[in-house]
């Protein structure tokens, strides 16, 4: 039997590739050195949490005495999430259509639609909340608008990708029939995208519920306002009660959307 020489273990890399790897490594190390907490400082901080007067110690047992007003605020949080998510998903559809290669009426329109979706997605929802507080004032309306814009960015991107990935055959067939652009989209594109649209919408709802709880921190309505007040007044036991109720809501919505996904898809 002829002895075969084993192939080399690693592929040869060029000098620019080695330099690129070195650059990435330098970036990671410098980032950790500059921003990561010192271990001794972290240890002292954690110890303070568990001290008799520390925050974690004071959180237990959680205080549910204000459960009724907190419950109403929780409902408002859910309503903000549902309303903002619904509006965002509806408005995401035209943005997604305009951002799609095959369905956009003109390349410049597609570029603008993609830029708007990217902008909506990139700016954090807390920043949108601050902007809408300036426009519509403090309260849940600003939260709904912030969630709506955030969801246009989130769902717009995924809707557009789903539409790009559909089989072009049925669309070509309807185009050959003489169908209008709208007819083609509604008849051929939407039915093909329905599973993907449903999954994205349910993820968007979960994301909205999680996000809406935080929007109250800047005054955009919902349970976040109560959480901020509890922390500001050092009512850590009530803060824990709010956190636990928020957790229950998020888990309930995630379980519910998971059940719907399994049933529909």
């Amino acid at each position, binding site marked *: 039997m002829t002895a075969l020489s084993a192939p080399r273990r690693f592929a040869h890399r060029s000098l620019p590739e080695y330099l690129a790897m070195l650059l990435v490594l330098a970036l990671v190390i410098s980032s950790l050195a500059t921003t990561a907490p010192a271990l001794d400082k972290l240890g002292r901080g954690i110890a303070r949490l568990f001290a008799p007067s520390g925050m974690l110690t004071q959180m237990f047992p959680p205080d549910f005495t204000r459960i009724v007003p907190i419950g109403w605020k929780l409902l408002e949080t859910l309503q903000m999430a549902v309303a903002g998510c619904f509006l965002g998903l509806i408005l995401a559809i035209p943005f997604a259509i305009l951002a799609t290669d095959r369905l956009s009426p003109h390349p410049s329109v597609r570029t603008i639609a993609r830029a708007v979706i990217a902008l909506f997605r990139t700016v954090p929802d807390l920043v949108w909340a601050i902007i809408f507080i300036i426009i519509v004032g403090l309260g849940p309306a600003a939260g709904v608008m912030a969630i709506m814009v955030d969801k246009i960015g989130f769902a717009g991107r995924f809707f557009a990708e789903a539409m790009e990935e559909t089989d072009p055959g049925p669309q070509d067939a309807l185009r050959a*029939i*003489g*169908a209008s652009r709208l*007819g083609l989209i509604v008849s051929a594109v939407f039915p093909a995208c329905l599973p993907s649209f449903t999954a994205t919408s349910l993820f968007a709802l979960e994301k909205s519920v999680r996000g809406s709880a935080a929007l109250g921190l800047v005054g955009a309505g919902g349970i976040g306002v109560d959480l901020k007040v509890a922390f500001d007044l050092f009512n850590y036991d009530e803060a824990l009660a709010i956190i636990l109720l928020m957790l229950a809501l998020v888990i309930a919505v995630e379980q519910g959307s998971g059940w719907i996904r399994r049933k529909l898809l």
Partner: protein
Amino acid sequence: MNAPAAPFELKAGSTIVGPVLAVSGLAKSFDGRSVLAGLDFALAPGQSTALIGANGSGKSTLLKCLVRLIEPSGGRIQMLGRDVCALAPRDLRAFRAEVGFVWQRHNLVPRLSALSNVVHGVQSRRSGPGAWFQALAPAAVRAEAMACLDRVGLADRALMRVDSLSGGQQQRVAIARMLMQRPAFILADEPDASLDPQTGEEVMALLQGLVRENGLSLLMISHRLEHTLQFSDRILGLADGRITLDQPTARASATGLRRFFDHVEAA
């Protein structure tokens, strides 16, 4: 081999008594590579014409150019009394509504029922939710769609999702959708390609029945010589971007067609 048919002129608004399709100097090139190099031919109405040629000879490109799903690079197409290359977008849609296109792959919307897919055919003449969803379609549209499904023998599968049907049944649903268009001319791009021999023959017989019984005109591509000989009245052969074979099927033979392919491959 016959000489290509001479181009002809149709007067605007005239009823079609001459050729239903006349092509003159039709050219198409992709990135400088010529696929169709000045085609000339004309088709009489109420006939079934087979278009044959080697893979990559431009047969599918020709069919798509005829309804401008691919824009021709040059030449003239007179079809159903219209100067196709000169049609404005709105007029082009109205023209396409009169031309049924049967695809190699059925191109149905997979998650929808057979009835919904057939109802989509009515988008050739109306729009709106009634043309998009069978559940919202007017009773007359639903009845016509059921009649089309019945014509292809699938009325009992109306509410079944098309992706649960066999390949042959899906192709028949696609033909029913095309019938819903009420076309005057049918273009068929290898409708038998992805089907087993028996189902392929049934589909071809169905298309020929539309020509014989409904008086429609058919231009079809088929790689199966036996189908070409059995289901066409005339055979056009495409090679080097031109029509190099044009003869009545009655005078054609399998040997002659094989010789055409041998000649094309040798070239």
